[in-house]
């Protein structure tokens, strides 16, 4: 009998046991799956096509988590020296173990708060990558972080920002619970969309990059199909919506958006609706990127 992998055992009984979603372990596993799905819908690319990683030497992944992106990059480009920074110790510990098991000495990992200046010299890196970190970055922090990125990028180096926004989903309960999560985040001032109807970070990446001294600012769009008709690839994103809701449950209740009973009912209802064979929904991955000018812009104020 095939022994189910650790990942399958979390994802498949997921809708039956929603409590398991809030554990930190499930977040790491979901992140690993999300990374694979994001790669798949982006044609297997770790970066926008135009960026010549094969000619680069030093890359930084800010908010690297357990290193999903970093280790794929290291395997494909053995010439690279890759730095990973994250504030969460357990994710970083997992990344360190993976580095040691894989003997990937080209990877250097460090625990750090992104709010502090980065211990990296000026004009040092060919590429800085920040993916799915927006929920840990408040709006006033962004200019500081982007300013640091510009400072440490070499002339002609690239900055890549990647975020996801949920567009629409046919399950009313799932939509309601996602809206409740966003409303709670909005009350805490953590959404970039002032209406709190969307998270908003992905939509503002382009605008924020336009405000830096970077050149050639542009973006790519990739679609995530949240339904099952073209396979089950959207399932992990649905899981992530429910995980975020479960994680935010205390705030949702405390802020008076839903009471505990209606939250639980809605979550259970969403779990049922998400199994509908005609489920349809979409999310968008936005990769916005820009390039350091030949004469570096580190002295230009943001």
């Amino acid at each position: 009998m095939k022994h189910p992998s650790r990942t399958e055992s979390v994802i498949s009984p997921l809708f039956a046991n929603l409590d398991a979603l809030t554990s930190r372990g499930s977040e790491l596993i979901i992140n690993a799956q999300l990374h694979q799905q994001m790669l798949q819908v982006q044609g297997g690319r770790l970066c926008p096509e135009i960026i010549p990683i094969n000619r680069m030497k030093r890359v930084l992944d800010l908010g690297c988590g357990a290193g999903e992106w970093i280790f794929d990059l290291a395997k494909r480009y053995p010439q690279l020296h890759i730095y990973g920074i994250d504030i969460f110790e357990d994710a970083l510990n997992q990344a360190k173990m993976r580095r040691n098991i894989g003997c990937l000495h080209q990877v250097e990992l460090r625990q750090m708060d992104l709010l502090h200046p980065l211990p990296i010299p000026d004009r040092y890196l060919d590429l800085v990558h920040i993916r799915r970190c927006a929920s840990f970055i408040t709006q006033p922090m962004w200019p500081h972080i982007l300013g640091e990125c510009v400072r440490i990028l070499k002339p002609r180096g690239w900055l890549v920002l990647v975020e996801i926004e949920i567009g629409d989903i046919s399950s009313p309960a799932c939509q309601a619970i996602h809206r409740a999560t966003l409303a709670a985040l909005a009350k805490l001032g953590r959404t970039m969309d002032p209406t709190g109807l969307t998270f908003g970070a992905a939509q503002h990446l382009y605008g924020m990059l336009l405000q830096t001294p970077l050149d050639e600012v542009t973006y790519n769009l990739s679609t995530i199909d949240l339904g099952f008709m073209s396979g089950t690839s959207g399932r992990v994103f649905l899981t992530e919506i429910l995980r975020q809701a479960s994680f935010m449950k205390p705030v949702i209740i405390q802020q008076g958006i839903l009471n505990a009973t209606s939250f639980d009912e809605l979550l259970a209802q969403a779990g049922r609706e998400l199994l509908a064979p005609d489920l349809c929904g979409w999310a968008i991955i936005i990769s916005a990127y820009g390039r350091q000018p030949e004469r570096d812009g580190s002295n230009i104020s943001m």
Partner: protein
Amino acid sequence: MQYSKKTATVATSLRFQHYLFFREIGSLIPETVPLTEIKQVLDVCCGPGAWCIEMASLYPDMQIVGVDIDADLIRIAQQDVVQARESLPIFECCTSLEKLPYASNRFDFIHLYHSNAGTTPQIRPALLLELWRILRPGGWINLVELEIGPVSSAAADTLFSHLRQVASNDIGELRLTSAVLYPQLLAQAGYRDIQYSLYPVDLGNQKGHMGRDYVMSVLANDRQIASFLDRMGVATREEVEVLLRNMIQDAQQIDYFCAGMLISAIGVKPFLTSGDTPVLG
């Protein structure tokens, strides 16, 4: 022949919409549909007929019919056909899409862009019932819609799309921008082999202004929405006008970002064995 400035603007916007959609989807008919089995084609809400005219020129052996409730747009379509000198699609005006002047089981393929431009009604069960009647067993129905609003840098866009959803939910009908419900809707109507495809449409301001211009043209023409939202009590006519003005202003900002999603859902009308009745009605 003279048309009102408004009709001409709507026609331009709808042609533009066709161009924008076609550029993203890359084909006029979903690739899963075997073209050899398609002879009789109907385009519901055909507007100025851009899709029909392109179909007729690509597939001269097919009989293409476009139907719309807007008589002016149909006259524009008929005029365009004469100018194009292509193999001719037929354009017809009808008073109600829910009572179409076609024989039962006539069409092999029915296409419906539910445009946001305010010239077409919502997709209601009665419309699907009528389309079921005129589609032959084994024929295909293809519903296409662009969702704009939920993913935009402009708060007004997000708010506007939310108001539309709230208003439509209140009347127990489909949400106005509700393309994610199409697969479910087709399944409930009795169609089989339902599939859908998603195509992101860049409506923001990077490179060219194609998408941005489209959003603007939709907003400029979509005045019916104000009275609809007013009637539903979710916002007064004045509030909606202010919101629309904000949206047009936001869309002109250099850092305007908006990603629309084009959803194309397709289903097959099954061959019924005797005693079977459609789930419709």
